[in-house]
């Protein structure tokens, strides 16, 4: 499936590891939260990039203070209507100090990309082949935002204050 990272089609160097698959000696792997819990020390001490894939029901606090030690967190959207991942993403970024790749996977639609981008996702597994064009379009559709989120976009209320201060 095409992967967009930071606005470009990107290769995916990560291996998604099934829970019963043998842990390869090298290479970046993504494991489930359950597997992470049982093999936490081994995984951290492997000397290779580590990622976790969260189900939509697995909330940010379940990774908690381990977040800064991870290189990637993938959050699953089993269906676009399930919006828990937006809170999970914001909390991982804003509360738990996660700075690695935050990847949206599952039912990721172009009309959701802006919301996801605003909540701190920087990578998206998308279905559509014209993904990058759609991604760029989705992100350019709005220039006014009414609330602060994880991104750096300046909310309208601050733009108003800034404009007033400048005049």
């Amino acid at each position, binding site marked *: 499936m095409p992967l967009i990272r930071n606005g470009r089609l990107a290769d995916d160097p990560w291996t998604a590891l099934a829970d019963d698959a043998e842990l390869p000696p090298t290479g970046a792997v993504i494991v489930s939260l359950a597997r992470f819990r049982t093999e936490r020390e081994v995984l951290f001490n492997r000397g290779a990039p580590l990622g976790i894939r969260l189900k939509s029901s697995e909330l940010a606090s379940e990774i908690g203070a381990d977040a800064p030690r991870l290189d990637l967190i993938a959050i699953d959207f089993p269906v676009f*209507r*399930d919006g*828990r991942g937006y809170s999970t993403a*914001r909390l991982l970024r804003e509360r738990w100090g996660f700075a690695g790749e935050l990847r949206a996977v599952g039912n990721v639609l172009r009309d959701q990309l802006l919301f996801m981008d605003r909540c701190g996702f920087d990578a998206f597994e998308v279905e559509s082949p014209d993904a990058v064009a759609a991604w760029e379009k989705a992100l350019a559709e709005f220039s006014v935002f*009414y609330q602060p989120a994880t991104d750096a976009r300046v909310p309208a*209320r601050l*733009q108003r*204050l800034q404009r007033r201060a400048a005049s």
Partner: protein
Amino acid sequence: MYRYDEFDQTFVAQRVAQFRDQVARRLVGELTEDEFRPLRLMNGLYLQLHAYMLRVAVPYGTLSSRQMRKLAHIARRYDKGYGHFTTRQNIQYNWPALKDVPDILMELAEVEMHALQTSGNCIRNVTADQYSGAAADEIEDPRICAEVIRQWSSLHPEFSFLPRKFKVAVTGAPHDRAAVAVHDIGIRIVRGDDGEVGYAVLAGGGQGRTPMIGKTVRAFLPKPYLLSYLEAILRVYNEFGRRDNMFKARIKILVHEVGIDEFRRRVEEEWEHIRGTAVEVPEEEVRRIASYFAPPTFARLPAVSEGFERQQRTDAQFALWARASLHPHKQPGYAIVNISLKPIGGVPGDATAEQMDIIADLAERYAFDEVRVTHEQNLTLPHVRQDDLYALWQELDAAGLATANINTVTDIIACPGLDYCNLANARAIPIAQKISERFGDIEQAHDIGELKIKISGCINACGHHHVGHIGILGVDKKGVEFYQLTLGGDATETAALGELVGPAFGYDDVVDAVEKLVRIYLGLRQENERFLDTYRRVGLQPFKEKLYAAH
């Protein structure tokens, strides 16, 4: 009232462009109806029994004359010449063509309106007391708070895919005309012990199949923390609200299942992390918004207009209308005027394009250019000089807008029901019309006194039957329409859910049953008691016995 600046204007214009693109993709078949559905729902566009329905947001129920004229124009140009005002202070058009909807939205944007968040599992259009800025008992105009919330919630990136829809209502007065206790979040503007103005925050109220009265999460929230507190509640709901069962997904179920104490603990814990952060709205921005809601320049007048007093004495029809339609204004010499959209035998909440134009015109001439939509599906002119009431009444009367039945038995709320809605079990509008005709004698209606009848065509309760003094709920019994009656519901600060009286009535019998209930009340009432007071004094039993007694 609030005016868009360049940022607001840009935002709605971009929204229209986005939707135009989505509609184009749908019309050429690039999007299936399934894929298009969530997109159109984010713009208030439903697919109903016979056609698309567009629900346009009227934030906190406030309209200018210019906006009202635009609504009339849309009704005329894109619909069948009328619109339908809803229990959420919005307006619905029942017959727009899909290809026209982007143009309608563009026309709305021209008058600073939109259809954003009038559907979908997001924070819906915020509602407020229709007497905002005019009522004598108001602590503060709730529209300031409501506008802050409207902006914050607009395309909120974290809260646009909640477990279920999310409704917020605000009241600025102790007498609750916004039904805040039956909203997902209800906000009461209150004065703290030391006189400071802040918010009491309720959560978990709602109607639908599991009606609940909202519970207090925080008795006093200082004003600067409004948005962090709301964000904390929404986040707890987004994370923990049920998603396994659509019927258990509203926040009321979460509050009920974990208990208000545990719910409050989670909210407060979340709040500790985010209070005072960038989410809060800066004071200067609040002042900017508040300035739009500054009171109009009222004339200094005596508290009572002599002309108005005299006209009531000499014209009984006018006196009757005045008694039903007026509400005390905070400014001496002024009155709040309610315009009934419940003509005898009519469809509750419908207004023709001509009526909308006339009301816009009257608002301009008599009411500082403002109209309000009430959650009881009527309209209000919030600031009218008592001296002008007689002339206003004559013009309303000529337009068929002076039915003197506000708050009476024929001021009925009804959802669209089986005439439009694909979820309906039964018709609601024709029942309202038949009851209205049955009690068509206005003097008699006044003798019966305040009586709120509310009708829903199914358990989703869009017609608020749970909080009707008499609630009527359409149910389906083996393909036949039946109606359950509930008594004693109340949407105000003494909120209560109605109790089921007994077995349901058929379509042809329900109006008789309602009439019987009214007669029973008249037989039981003591001096000055409203239906609700009598019911509260005597309880369900006497009503039940007499209603089902063999005749």
